[in-house]
């Protein structure tokens, strides 16, 4: 009687252990397969400004260089420190701060063409990496603000300096909820009026 019970319990434990092992084996499998190539996963983390501040001709070449291990992860100012952190996590390396001589990080901006000054030379159109500037020869040009990445590559070629960078407003409301830190200060009686 005891022996039967013991065998029954033994069988139950073995069956449960088998189930756990099988489910863990199932969990293991999809992790290894079906991931896109490393360069593409890196490219997905980059901000796609195509600004060339990293020294490569766009984000994809930089991603490929990173995938080959030929460049360091702290070369992308538009990505910010958050971007470096994400790259470090993906590449299993340590976080690297920006180099001292790196270009400064700026808040996101979009180019604006002063339509009165523009002479229609098409130089900026040729410089824009994302085709966000429209116009043709001797016609006024204009920037598609939604498509502009703020790379500033159009500033240099302009012969009449009619392009300026304006801060981008992305949300309907251009104010942010701050991070709550301290309790509210009360107004003393009488001072409010």
């Amino acid at each position, binding site marked *: 009687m005891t022996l039967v019970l013991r065998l029954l319990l033994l069988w139950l434990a073995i069956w449960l252990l088998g189930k756990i092992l099988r489910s863990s084996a199932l969990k293991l499998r999809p992790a290894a397969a079906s991931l896109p190539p490393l360069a593409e996963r890196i*490219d997905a983390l*980059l*901000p*796609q*400004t*195509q600004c060339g501040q990293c020294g490569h001709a*766009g*984000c*994809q070449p930089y991603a490929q260089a990173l995938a080959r291990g030929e460049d360091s992860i702290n070369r992308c100012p538009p990505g910010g420190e958050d971007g470096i952190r994400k790259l470090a996590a993906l590449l299993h390396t340590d976080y690297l701060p920006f180099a001292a001589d790196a270009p400064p990080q700026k808040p996101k901006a979009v180019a604006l063409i002063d*339509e009165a000054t523009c002479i229609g030379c098409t130089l900026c159109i040729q410089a824009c*990496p*994302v*085709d*966000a500037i*429209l*116009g043709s020869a001797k016609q*006024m040009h*204009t920037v*598609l603000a939604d*498509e502009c*990445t703020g790379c500033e590559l159009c500033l240099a070629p302009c012969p009449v300096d009619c392009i300026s960078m304006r801060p981008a*407003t*992305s*949300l*309907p*409301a*251009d*104010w*942010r*909820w*701050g*991070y*709550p830190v301290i*309790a*509210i*200060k*009360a*107004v*003393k*009686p009488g001072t*409010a*009026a």
Partner: protein
Amino acid sequence: MSRQTRLPAAASSHPLTTLPLPAQLNLWLQGSRCCVEVGQRVLKHQLLAQADNEFGAAVHAPTSGHIRAIGPLPQALPDAPLRDGLQLQPDGQDEALPLQANTDWPALSPLALAIRLQDMGVMGQHGPLLPLAWAAAAPPPALLIINAVENEPFLQADSTLLREQAAAVADAMAMLGRILQPARLVLAIQQEQGAAINALRSLAASQSWQLEVIQAPYPAGDDAPLLQSLARPEESSNSLCLPLAGVYAAGRAILHGEPCISRIVTVSGAVKQPQNILALLGSPVADLLACAGLPPQRHAIVHGGGLRGFALPDTAIGIHQHSHCLLALADQAELIAQPCVRCGDCASICPSQLQPQELYWHCSQQQLEQAQHWRLADCSQCGLCSAVCPSQLPLLDTFRQASQQLLLAEQQQSAADAARQRHRFRQFRLERDKQEKAQRLAERAAQQAAKLAQQQAAAPSSTEPAAVVADKQAAIAAAMARAAERQQQRPDTAPSASTSERDAAIAANRQATIDAAMARAAARKAAQDAAKAAAADSPANNSAAPGLNQQQQALIQAAMQRASAQKTAATANSPAAMDEDKKALIAAAMARAAAQKAARDAGEQEK
């Protein structure tokens, strides 16, 4: 802690008073560009700023007076950030421009209505009362809800408006119903707003709209739950919710030509006489509080309702169109947040069945991915969790901040994806242009070579040099052709088929932007002409009014052009409108890819 925690019982409705003219008005130019100058005298209803973007609305002078300053001013927003504003010093004469009532309003299209409301400064939750993109694209809505529900503690502004101006609200709704042609028009109101319901009951019977009295507790009056509870399944995808104050202002603007320059504000809390005050936009918060009688003890000034409001650090800030309530709340000793004691009250009261304590932990650790896993996106930010938290943790503030961060990250990601697509397409385009050029050159060279050969055949006497030249040219042509071929053979320049739609959209978008730019230029020119004409007509000081009208008309024209351009962009998104050239291009790319694949397969087979 039970789900049905009772909110403080609604106080009996307070009287409506009118705020005496303040000494100064601080207006917020929300998404609008100023068109007056410092020192200029403006009349009541005069246009001060016109809409600058899709989310802005025009601003009109609430009274006559002088412009004292234009520039960043603290605004009634969380943290009182500096935003574009305008200081107007009233001169007390309240001299007004004559109002021009539009009798042609039944003929307006929804889009024209939306633009006119934007120009009259009538705002809804986010930007103009009727979103321009919606008005341009959408078919008649199946369900239009006018949201007059006030179940957040202390709010009474909408109830007061309904009580005092029920007929005007009914007219405004009839106007909206006439122009927008919704299949069903509903005014939603809360069970507790008894006086307002009585005022409406008699009107609703004879009108084309229904009165819906909702009984569910607090967050049920928000737009999303309202839509969920009132919309039938087939209507849910095509319905719109509008705030009552905006609808009333829209009625005034369209039926009487009066721009939105005032609103009703509930002033309540620990003030001596809680009341509803009809105040001009831009009236300083201090004036409103003084009107209701400041409490003697220490207090905090809160902008907004009892659960979602935020503290204002400064009482000189002017009210804006979203200021429905001001509260003076007794200072509750020191609010020192204690650590979470895992009581679970926040989870049991949450109307979205979230786990606020988990969310709070992950948000405060900046683990936004985990916060997403715990459904931060489903948080309606009702503030109930903050209100029941015994540790007084700033749950609502944390969730607001984290949601905004998440939204920003999503926007950045989609912008990056779009930029990547456009960059790849540009690379593909450059490559294609190069190829075509090479091909053309090769063809031309081949033709010339053929011509030369013919000439050679005709005049055999001068064979030697000509033959050499022809040979050379033929070789060059062949080399170029080879080069062109090789370039064609190169893989990876062919875009995937999925980009086709995007390309079409890009083309349409480009066209739209060009149209818009041209329209803008035309409008500017018209405005300049008008200004010149006005200046020539009357060089004296009354040039403002006609110039203003011209300008307004030009603006309307421009806005309509803009909107129609947007519409074409929207319709051009469909693959049907894809232009033939692009189609051919994509077909060619696909054929090339197929050929390459066939070649590769053949190579493998040989192996």
